[in-house]
């Protein structure tokens, strides 16, 4: 589905606003002292992709690859010339590993992240942070106690289209934010639930409520929930959802609707299905008192505002597109590595992961309790 050519004329090309990255970029202000040695744990589809991203990140170094099944990481270890380790305990005992990147089933996050923290390794986790809030709390507590850094792979934040959306909202182009909407309709298929799109690592953990924590909401929509937080700076305070399993051989939900309220009074909703056979529909809408924007498939942003922004005139719809292809995962790893090496705060923290889990948990529990539930607030003071 990637990079289908848009059939419309894009009015503004990306190169006009490269400036977006310049202001907040750590890599522009901080010298690279030493590379962070990260071990990639998990050899599934995502694990392999993440190992490649570690390799691509300038400030990081792939220290080792690890999976319980040696067959899935053998090729990778060979091509990158790094040790292939099957014993996780042995991996975290190694002195040439500074951090672990865990791309493993959700239910293993807690135990393996805590183990890594105890071994004084920084922890990079695939999203979601954990299967539920209690587990998430354990991970954050362990990392805080051990004094290691914790970050969660909400790297969609680094997609240029998201950066642009954030900048527009920050520059008050939409006025006061009054609503958001997430629509995601796609076909996941049996193969996805059985282990992954390519099927290189089999396992049915995605089907299990206990192991995965949930279905499409915790697996996929968690990204949009996070980058909307990042773009708008708003927190979801109350949520209600209806969901069920309709067409997939799984225990978790394969379709969901949800409505929520933000801390500034703004409102929002989610609609999603994973058995949508027609063309994929993936859009995020944000609207305010003075304008609206829509992030669509194919990395296109539609903007309408009554206020001008740079060369965009007010009062008409602009199609902003032609963004560069960015390896956003490696950008996230790179920025995390630089922040760690220089003792600076990193971008996506355990707090972001924890809040994401709290919103999802409130949504899941609201259906069983048949009423909208308040989202728990983060229990710790930020450092």
């Amino acid at each position, binding site marked *: 589905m990637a990079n289908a050519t848009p059939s419309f004329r894009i009015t503004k090309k990306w190169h006009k606003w490269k400036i977006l990255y310049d202001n907040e970029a750590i890599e522009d202000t901080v010298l690279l002292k030493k590379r962070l040695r990260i071990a990639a744990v998990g050899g599934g589809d995502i694990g392999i992709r993440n190992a490649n991203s570690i390799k691509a990140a300038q400030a990081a170094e792939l220290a080792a690859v690890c999976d319980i099944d040696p067959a899935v990481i053998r090729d990778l270890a060979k091509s990158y010339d790094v040790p292939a380790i099957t014993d996780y305990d042995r991996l975290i005992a190694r002195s040439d590993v500074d951090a672990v990147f865990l791309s493993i089933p959700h239910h293993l996050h807690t135990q393996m992240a805590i183990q890594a923290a105890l071994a004084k390794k920084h922890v990079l986790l695939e999203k979601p942070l954990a299967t539920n809030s209690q587990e998430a709390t354990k991970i954050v507590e362990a990392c805080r106690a051990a004094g290691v850094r914790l970050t969660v792979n909400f790297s969609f934040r680094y997609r240029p289209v998201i950066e642009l959306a954030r900048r527009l909202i920050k520059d008050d182009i939409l006025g006061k934010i009054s609503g958001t909407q997430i629509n995601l309709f796609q076909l996941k298929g049996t193969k996805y639930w059985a282990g992954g799109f390519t099927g290189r690592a089999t396992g049915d953990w995605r089907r299990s409520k206990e192991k995965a924590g949930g279905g499409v909401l915790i697996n996929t929509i968690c990204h949009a929930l996070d980058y909307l937080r990042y773009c708008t700076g708003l927190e979801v305070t109350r949520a209600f959802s209806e969901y069920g399993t309709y067409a997939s051989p799984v225990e978790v939900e394969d379709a969901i609707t949800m409505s929520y309220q933000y801390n500034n009074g703004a409102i929002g909703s989610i609609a999603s299905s994973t058995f949508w056979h027609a063309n994929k529909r993936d859009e995020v809408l944000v609207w305010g008192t003075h304008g609206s924007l829509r992030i669509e498939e194919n990395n296109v942003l539609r903007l309408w505002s009554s206020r001008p922004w740079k060369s965009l005139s*007010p009062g008409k719809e602009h199609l902003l597109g032609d963004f560069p292809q960015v390896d956003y995962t490696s950008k996230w790893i790179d920025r995390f590595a630089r922040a760690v090496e220089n003792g600076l705060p990193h971008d996506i923290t355990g707090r972001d992961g924890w809040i994401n889990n709290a919103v999802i948990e409130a949504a899941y529990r609201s259906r069983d309790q048949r009423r909208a539930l308040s989202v728990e607030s983060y229990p710790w003071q930020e450092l």
Partner: protein
Amino acid sequence: MNSQNIKNTLKRYKQYVPPFLGRLGTGIWKSLEIPLGALLERRAILKGQRIVWPVAEVADFERALLLGPTSSDALVQVDFTLISPGTERAQLQGLVGNDFPYYAGYSGCGEVISVGKNITRFQKGDRVAGRIPHKSPATVQEQYLFRIPENVSMEQAAFIELGIIVLQGIHKAQIQPGESALVLGQGLIGQLANRLSRIAGAAPIIAVARSKAKEKAAVNDWGADEFLTSDELNEAEPSDGYDLVIETTGDANILPIASRFARKGGRIIGLGTPRGRGRISLGQNGARPGVRIIGAHISGIPQYERAPGLWTYQSEGRLFLDLVARHKLMVDDLISQKADPMSANSVYESLLNENPGIIGVLFDWRSCGPRRAKFNFKG
């Protein structure tokens, strides 16, 4: 016919667009609309700036290509244009039936930079005021321009059209000395109506507005004698009423209120631009109180003839400038804000928020672009 049409037409018939025409549909060329007549007249095309409202409730500043003057126009490098908040707010919201995109503004001043060959009254370098839109440079027909007297500042002269609007209403009202006047609405028109009816001899003059914010500007030695909010007016003890009720709000439902406060046989002067429809009863609001309703909107001004109470545009304009020059009429204190046209978007946004403290806003075009318009094509 606009530039895109020309380009498309050329493409269709010749299958070839010369490189210099290839730019027609892009960039600043998009803003140019060439009527066929203008091509035949060989009018110049020049670079300028203007304020445009692309859709309702949105304003923007844009650089555009503008048509040069015809043989009977003067080309004016604009210094100031005046926003009349009430009228322009209604237009911006689309309440008066205007289409979008809309190019607003009708009162301003500047310096003549060139004149058409049929123009005799003005020459290059003259300071002029008149019916000038929010645009610079502007092409203005000779009959809508006035030479500014020596001791009138540019800022004062920018009030010209508003002055004419009110003056022709005052003339139509045929005010007698000592007649009491109730002025409903204290926007720019209302404020000028206070001052000009005082000059015409009305006394006392009671200014009425929704909020207290405009009291300071309304009540002074050259304006109204007393100020009432509309609530205070409603609660006031019944009196005989006023000889004159001057309506400047444009509110469709103002007539019943106006007739309530008019004396038997009094006159209601309809000065505001009416928006929307209201319900009135001829018996209750007109016939029984025996009031006369005098339509005094600017659109009823005679072009050429001059009769008692019916002055022409030119004579009203000259009178306005004369009154200002002789310090009979004060307008300086009505300027609440001078704004950069480039910030038009936020100026109009705050206008839509109905800040009652804003009376007159001047756009200062002097900083916009080069002093002299660049002629990049001379027909």
